[in-house]
């Protein structure tokens, strides 16, 4: 630690209002005013008074500084996070990204995953070796060491002693205080209003740590007598960890809190006398009570095991968070909100929900089956319900009460509890937190802002274990619709929800569920919403060309020089687009959702939206037919499907030289190749699908062209030997045309069920036919 350089930094601000200036004469004439202004404050008396005042101030400042140097210390903590642990020092910040303003007073650094934090602190009780610092304690299990440093650099060890119940302060204790100063002579009793004060702090300057002192005034009434940190007036430049002296350099108080005045941004000092007597929760007691608390609180929480189904061909693997990112068996912890329902505080994306295969809950010794009921629209949580009809007597023993006390005032400590899965097992954590304030978030909603981050699923309680609120991931439904989010992601914001807020949603879940998030059959899962167009992305060159061709059109202007826009290249038959008169060459610009102000501009990512890539291979040898990947995976389809069938929109597009606004009510698309009915013919070793509208369009098949298309051929089986490969269309079996996969299934089952059977298939590929004869067995 560097030597303390005692620098006198005295900043005397303006606004002395003691009326030593000469008054302007009462006459209102400009000339007179001019004359009077020219009359500078006169008199040696005034000058002398000012000089004396200044000197006195300097003297007081020096005195404050000297005192501060003996009592201000720094507390340095070194701690290590587990992977994905959440404890951070400082508040979580508000929507605008402003974090707690600790300025030069606290520092954080990170080396090798270990973090070091230094905070300003005060030697509160020299006899007991107690050091007080603004809050932000790390859980003991993470701490490697805590050290204290005096203003002139002497080191001494520290241990966590406890925390204040009603304000954000943490107490540390040392048994090796270097030196034995007396306790600070705090100003006692009622304080008269005064206009100036001194603020001292131990800060890091160019020459090392130094005790600095600043004078500050507010021009009005200042600190009132109070045993609560809510004076009527504030000093604007105070920071956490600053020791405050009054005009006569007597120690007045210490700034602990984080709660800024919303107007002036200053902070409130705690009276020193109050600090000595404010209630403290001792860490030793807290730790001792932990196991019992965990025992009691743990009864609200249940371990839930969800098994997801395997991805189908063409589907992506799911990526999970937590310990095991790829396992299809995942564990969650949820709270019983009724005897048969559990709320799981996790935001699951659509794809995940649709791939849920089985949900079981560990109730005592048993694994009980639960069913997915729904996911909430306005917050990240989903409800599961007891599923076994046979067990009528079933009921979850301990249920979370949905009504309880209000959230505590800012800076009051509250108990927190959370169950998480770490390293393959359940881990319950009991700790404490405080509210640092409130901040505006999405949709201008006011959120409580905890001092330390809270993991999702954390239950906030009073110290006598009455539940107050639950931490859940936030959902921003409007934004998700536009951006296509709602994915299982680590970038979610966790908010503290009051239980009363959740009560309505938990009592009438159906009304609060997100209609787009529900488990669905595999086929339904793949259904999309359509307009019925294929398109290519606009580009600056294309926009310029379209305008040239039109002899001066609007393409560049409306597409913003090719930045946005989809140029239609194909309109499907019998589609909403066809009915509305859209044609090839139209440029789709934006979609306005009914009731929403902001339009959605159509900007596809990547080169081409829509359409298939590589559907038909250019191979000249036999086979080589290549199925479109995953079907309609284009940008526009994704957007329309997120908006949802039934949604009323207005599509704005460029038709020739005209900008057109066309209303649509979005409809489900007919089945396409990805969601088509299919049938797996095991004995032949082939999977066939209906000829859907997209395949018919791509292959220019007549509407009445019969047949089913081969989507997969198993190696080495009869179909493979007969050279029936992916993309081949089977049009007839034994002379009978096939309308759909049901016809195929019927025909083949009849043939395969007999002792012997023969199937003569007529095949079609790229306009050429072929016959094959397959014998069974």
């Amino acid at each position, binding site marked *: 630690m560097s030597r303390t350089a005692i620098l006198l930094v005295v900043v005397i601000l303006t606004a002395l209002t003691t009326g030593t200036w000469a008054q302007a004469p009462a006459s209102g004439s400009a000339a007179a005013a001019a004359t009077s202004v020219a009359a500078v404050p006169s008199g040696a008396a005034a000058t002398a008074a000012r000089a004396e005042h200044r000197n006195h101030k300097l003297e007081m400042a020096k005195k404050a500084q000297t005192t501060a140097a003996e009592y201000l210390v720094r507390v340095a903590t070194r701690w290590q996070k587990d992977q994905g642990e959440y404890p951070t020092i400082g508040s979580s910040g508000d929507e605008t990204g402003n974090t707690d303003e600790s300025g030069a007073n606290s520092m954080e650094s990170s080396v090798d995953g270990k973090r070091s934090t230094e905070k300003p602190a005060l030697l509160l009780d020299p006899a007991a070796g107690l050091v007080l610092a603004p809050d932000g304690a790390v859980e003991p299990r993470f701490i490697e060491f805590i050290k204290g440093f005096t203003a002139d650099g002497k080191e001494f060890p520290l241990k966590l002693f406890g925390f204040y119940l009603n304000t954000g302060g943490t107490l540390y204790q040392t048994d090796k205080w270097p030196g034995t100063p007396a306790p600070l002579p705090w100003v006692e009793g009622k304080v008269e209003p005064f206009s100036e004060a001194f603020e001292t702090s131990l800060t890091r300057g160019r020459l090392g740590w130094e005790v600095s002192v600043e004078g500050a005034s507010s021009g009005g009434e200042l600190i009132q007598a109070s045993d609560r940190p809510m004076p009527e007036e504030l000093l604007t430049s105070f920071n956490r960890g600053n020791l405050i002296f009054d005009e006569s350099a007597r120690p007045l108080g210490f700034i602990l809190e984080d709660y800024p005045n919303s107007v002036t941004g200053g902070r409130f000092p705690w009276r020193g006398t109050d600090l000595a007597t404010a209630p403290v929760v001792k860490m030793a007691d807290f730790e001792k009570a932990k196991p019992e608390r965990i025992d009691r609180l743990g009864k609200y929480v249940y371990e839930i095991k969800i098994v997801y189904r395997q991805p189908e061909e063409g589907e992506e693997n799911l990526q999970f968070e937590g310990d095991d990112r790829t396992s299809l068996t995942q564990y969650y912890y949820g709270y019983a909100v009724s005897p048969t329902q559990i709320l799981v505080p996790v935001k699951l994306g659509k794809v995940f929900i649709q791939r849920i295969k089985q949900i079981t809950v560990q109730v005592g010794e048993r694994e009980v089956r639960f069913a997915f009921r729904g996911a909430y629209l306005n917050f990240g949580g989903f409800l599961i319900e007891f599923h076994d009809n046979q067990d009528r007597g079933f009921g979850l023993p301990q249920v979370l009460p949905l009504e309880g006390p209000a959230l505590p005032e800012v800076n009051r400590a509250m108990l927190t509890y959370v169950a998480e899965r770490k390293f393959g097992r359940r881990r319950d954590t009991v700790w404490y937190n405080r509210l640092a304030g409130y901040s505006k978030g999405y949709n201008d909603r006011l959120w409580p802002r905890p001092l330390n981050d809270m993991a999702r699923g954390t239950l906030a309680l009073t110290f006598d274990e009455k539940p107050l609120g639950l931490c859940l991931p936030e959902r921003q439904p409007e934004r998700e619709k536009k951006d296509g989010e709602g994915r299982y992601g680590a970038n979610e914001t966790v908010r503290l929800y009051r239980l009363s807020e959740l009560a309505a949603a938990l009592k009438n879940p159906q009304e609060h569920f997100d209609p787009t998030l529900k488990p669905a059959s595999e086929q339904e899962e793949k259904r999309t919403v359509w307009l019925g167009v294929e398109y290519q992305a606009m580009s600056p*060159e294309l926009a*310029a060309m379209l305008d040239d061709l039109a002899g001066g059109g609007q393409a560049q202007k409306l597409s913003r020089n090719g930045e946005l826009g989809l140029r239609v290249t*194909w309109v499907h038959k019998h589609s909403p687009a066809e009915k509305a008169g859209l044609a090839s060459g139209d440029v789709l610009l934006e979609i306005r959702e009914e009731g929403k102000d902001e339009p959605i501009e159509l900007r596809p990512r990547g080169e081409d939206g829509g359409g*298939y890539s*590589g559907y038909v291979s250019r191979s000249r040898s036999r086979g080589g037919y290549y199925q479109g990947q995953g079907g309609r995976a284009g940008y526009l389809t994704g957007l329309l499907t997120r908006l949802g069938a039934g949604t009323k929109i207005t599509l704005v597009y460029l038709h020739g030289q005209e900008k057109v606004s066309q209303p649509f009510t979005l409809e489900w698309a007919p089945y396409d190749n990805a969601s088509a009915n299919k049938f797996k013919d095991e004995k032949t070793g082939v999977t066939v699908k209906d000829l859907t509208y997209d395949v018919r*369009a*791509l292959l220019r098949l007549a509407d009445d062209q019969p047949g089913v298309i081969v989507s997969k051929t198993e190696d080495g089986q009869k179909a493979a030997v007969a050279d029936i490969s992916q993309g081949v269309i089977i049009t007839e079996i034994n002379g009978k045309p096939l309308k759909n996969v049901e016809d195929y299934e019927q025909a083949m089952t009849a043939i395969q069920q007999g002792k012997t059977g023969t199937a003569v298939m007529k095949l079609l590929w790229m306009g050429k036919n*072929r016959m*094959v*004869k397959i014998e069974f067995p």
Partner: protein
Amino acid sequence: MRYGAAWLVVLTAALAAGGCTDSLVKMEVKVSPPQAAGHEVDIQAMIARAKAKVFPTLVYVKPIQEDYSAGKKRRVVLGGSGIIISADGYVVTNNHVAEKAVEIHCVLFDDTMVEATVIGTDKDTDLALLKLKVDPQRQFAFATLADSDKVEEGQFCMALGAPWGLKRSISLGVVSCAQRFLEGESEYSLWLQTDAAINPGNSGGPLVDTNGEVIGINTLGTFNGSTGFSIPSNTVRYVIAQLQAHKEVRRSWTGVRLQPLRDFDRDSFFEGERGVLVASVDPGSPAEQAGLEVGDLILTVGGEAVDGLYNENLPKIRAILGRLPTSQPTAFQLQRGGRPVAVNLTPREKGVVEGQDLDLKRWNLTVKAINEYNDPEMYYYDKEGVYVQGVQYPGNAQECGFHGNDIILKVDGKEVKSLKDVKELYDAILKDSGRKKRVPVEVLRNGMPQLLVLDYARDYDQTPQQKAETTKE
């Protein structure tokens, strides 16, 4: 050393599976009478005799071919082989050696180099006829064609040619199969298969028997040269006669595609001993007009029985169909659903089997006319059109997103139905100095249309000096 252009065909399983099944293929099989005891066969002498007869007729063919596949017209030097089949200097070689050649030089046995002209080519059988450019009085030793129908498996044969450009080489082997069917390569003829080493450069050279007569023209080989295929001399005889007389082989086209009754590769076995199956009838074709349907069994064509029991029988039947007159109908006897049906079919001229090429130099791409035989997948989408053959890298077309196999639908807003259309539009656009140097081109890619903007402001062929000069102007 420039390697020649013999096709290297990776043999498919079908080939391996389709054995040369003596007992099943209905054709004459000659079994050589056993040698009398004590009679020794002097192999060396046999070879020497044969060689003496044929070696002087062997030529090393060096064509300079125009190639459009890389996005611009370029010249490629190839090396192949050929055989002189007449005293006045007609040379037989493969089509893939002689096609699109702007210049051909032949190195003769007496180490003289002579220029040759292409008389005619036949892509379907991969044969070509050249004529050496010499004084009319000059006489050449020439080879004789044997009767390939009499060739037997196991008999010795020699492949003469210039593998890897190594002129005048001989390799020795046996005829591995005399009736080989190769999927995709056996439209009108079967193949002779041999294990005499055939490598790139052997294309167009002779396969010779122990009598010194040509039994085949070497055309295809496997990657390691251990198996080779030759066009049987009887096919050569027919095609060369046609090329000599008409400079082309005129064939008829019915639009019918055949499949055998017994297909060992696909394990597909239909009943019957006679006739050949109709696999496919092209829409709008003479066969469709005549009323043929998929699944019909063709029994006779013009009174001649056609039996397509196995794949090996199909080329002969196709050849028969290819020789039908186009000026009058031919009677077909069919069987449909067990009942006899008679139809009359008038085929049409087969016509050109490959589209022409065009180099759009300033735009840095090459195009090709869509041909129903050469480009069936593109023909499916556009019956009269042009597609992008190659895109030069670096080049204007490549930068503007053109891909090979894009079908060109419209240029500058005008429909394109032929190579001529493209050329006219291209010339007109380049001539128009007043217009902006970019053209809208609508292409069909993977079945879906797209509008591309071909910006050719940059001239890739100009040297910096030329560029400076043009800008000065």
